[in-house]
């Protein structure tokens, strides 16, 4: 792996973290003193993916624009890494007319057809949709692939298993990714799934699989590379369970009392500072470059938020538009 690629990994992870940190601050800023989830410039639920950036960045470095992703309710890292426009996405999260969906979707329902990106707030239901996208790619003779991403809780849903079975039966170019962040809201993985290695589930569908430990962007990149290349070459689907870390709550406002000591431990395993010190130590980056990367990310994020805030809201009567094409 060349140094430029490693720098790009770092940059993209910083970009995503900077974005979500700013979103988090803005989300809470106007919900005080009496916290009301529906108040403020960013209303509604907010699921942040801090800690899971290595998954999105390692995956998307293997993808091109024509490849598809279906993401879950925690989608920002995947959307940004896939290339969804930050300004349009931010405007959507702010409920503005300039947003990806003119304010009809919000943060759990981001759609960017130019990047073949979508996400869904319903656990595991993006897996079958990705199978259909892969079906279309294969029928048209392209070498594009579809990637379905959801958490380890989603792997207990029927939709996950139906999708794996179909994709394997039809040998479709799909990469199924389980982001194992140890928690399905407040239910720990060991209370929900009787096996420690979720990639074993692929045995039931005759599918190659791997569990990826370490939450390291380079390891994840290499694992995804094998799966994506297999899919592009017509070798069919792969299941990857990637062990990652949820640094924040399930959603903003989640006090996380259920995590106990594990929370501090998780926060001590933040993948971005770890990668940063590794690259600095190895001489790939110096402190000045690190600062420049962070400044660049902040500038982009600030511009996106300013764009969203300055954008008009949709007309109330637009509620009636787009039920049908």
């Amino acid at each position, binding site marked *: 792996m060349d140094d430029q690629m490693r720098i790009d990994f770092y940059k993209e992870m910083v970009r995503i973290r900077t974005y979500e940190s700013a979103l988090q601050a803005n989300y809470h800023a106007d919900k005080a003193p009496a916290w009301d989830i529906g108040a403020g410039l960013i209303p509604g639920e907010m699921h942040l993916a801090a800690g899971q950036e290595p998954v999105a960045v390692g995956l998307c470095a293997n993808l091109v624009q024509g490849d598809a992703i279906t993401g879950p309710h925690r989608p920002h890292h995947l959307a940004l890494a896939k290339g969804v426009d930050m300004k349009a996405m931010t405007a959507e999260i702010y409920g503005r007319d300039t947003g990806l969906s003119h304010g*009809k979707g919000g943060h759990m329902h981001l759609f960017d*057809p130019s990047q073949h990106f*979508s996400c869904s707030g319903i656990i595991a239901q993006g897996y*079958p949709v*990705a*199978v*259909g996208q892969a079906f279309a790619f294969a029928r048209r003779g392209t070498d594009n692939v579809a990637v379905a991403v959801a958490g380890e809780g989603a792997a207990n849903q029927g939709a996950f298993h*139906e999708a794996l079975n179909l994709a394997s039966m039809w040998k479709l170019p799909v990469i199924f990714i389980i982001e194992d962040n140890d928690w399905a809201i407040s239910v720990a993985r060991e209370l929900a799934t009787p096996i420690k290695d979720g990639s074993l589930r692929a045995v039931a569908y005759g599918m190659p699989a791997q569990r990826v430990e370490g939450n390291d962007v380079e390891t994840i990149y290499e694992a995804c590379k094998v799966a994506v290349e297999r899919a592009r070459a017509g070798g069919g689907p792969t299941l990857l369970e990637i062990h990652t870390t949820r640094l924040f709550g399930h959603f903003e406002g989640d006090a996380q009392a259920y995590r106990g000591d594990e929370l501090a431990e998780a926060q001590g395993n933040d993948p971005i500072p770890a990668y940063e010190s590794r690259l600095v130590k190895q001489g790939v980056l110096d402190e000045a470059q690190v600062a420049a990367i962070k400044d660049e990310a902040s500038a982009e994020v600030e511009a996106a938020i300013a764009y969203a805030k300055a954008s008009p809201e949709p007309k109330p009567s637009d509620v009636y538009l787009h039920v049908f094409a």
Partner: protein
Amino acid sequence: MTATVESAAGIRRVTTAKAISEAIAQEMRSNPEVFVMGEDVGAYGGIFGSTGGLFEEFGSARIIDTPISETGFIGAGIGAAVEGMRPVVELMFVDFFGVCFDQIYNHMAKIHYESGGNVKVPMVLMMAVGGGYSDAAQHSQCLWASFAHMPGMKVVAPSNPYDAKGLMISAIRDDNPVIFMFHKGVMGLPWMAKNPRSIGAVPEEEYTVPIGKAAVAHEGSDVTVVSVSMSVQWCLDVAESLEGTTSVEVLDLRSIVPLDREAILASVAKTGRLVIVDEDYKSFGLSGEIVATIADKDPRLLKAPVQRVAYPDVPVPYARVLEYEALPTRDKIEAAIAAVMTA
């Protein structure tokens, strides 16, 4: 019995099942993006004949048998549709929607809206509905109102072969998800009760029947009978038997979403009397919606209280005597017409 029957006049008459499969075949010939997916749609030809002959012509690449995996393959249909293909997906019985409704109402129906109009889902989801043959509670429902209640899906339910072909072609060409409900009794199946109106004249060439337009199936001036799907056939039988005594106008809705409210209002404005015949459950459904349509516009259009011949709010039973107590039948329709005429 074959699907195609030559009438005395030499005009081709076919079953509704044949009309549907012919519509799909013609669209598949002209558009390579159209394909069919579902359980037993391949060599079997669809449990109710909706895909008869397609496998022989198009093969397994485009007529795709699926595992019993409705969430999986309906979701896959959605994925193919958002990439611009035009899947025709069969859910064998509407009653099976319980295992896959998330894909239907949270994804198929909502993606266009959630995306602010940027992502289309041009997909047909066809399914068998209806009872009358002792298939009991989990294989006999109509449920069109359950789908119609949730925004984002068009819902059609033809009563005859001509409309079935034209509506299927419209559905495949539509840029929206369309729920296409075929009543088993309408299909003209050789292994069910023979309903003469389930075989009819159907042009061989392609044509469309517009989604959202009702049809006056029998003109009349004394009373309006609004119905859809199989029950339209019973309404026509009654209307014909009453010719000379009561002039019955039978309005075949053909589509439930969009509902042709103008056609309902126009007919009721003419007759002043309304009977609604609906094989779906009575409460919170189509028949109530039709009454509300009149009440919202002008309740004074009515000269008499409305009569609703709808499926009572009970699950569908097995024993024939029990099921027919609940189903809309010619006797009940005739009694309802008599009631509004004498009120």
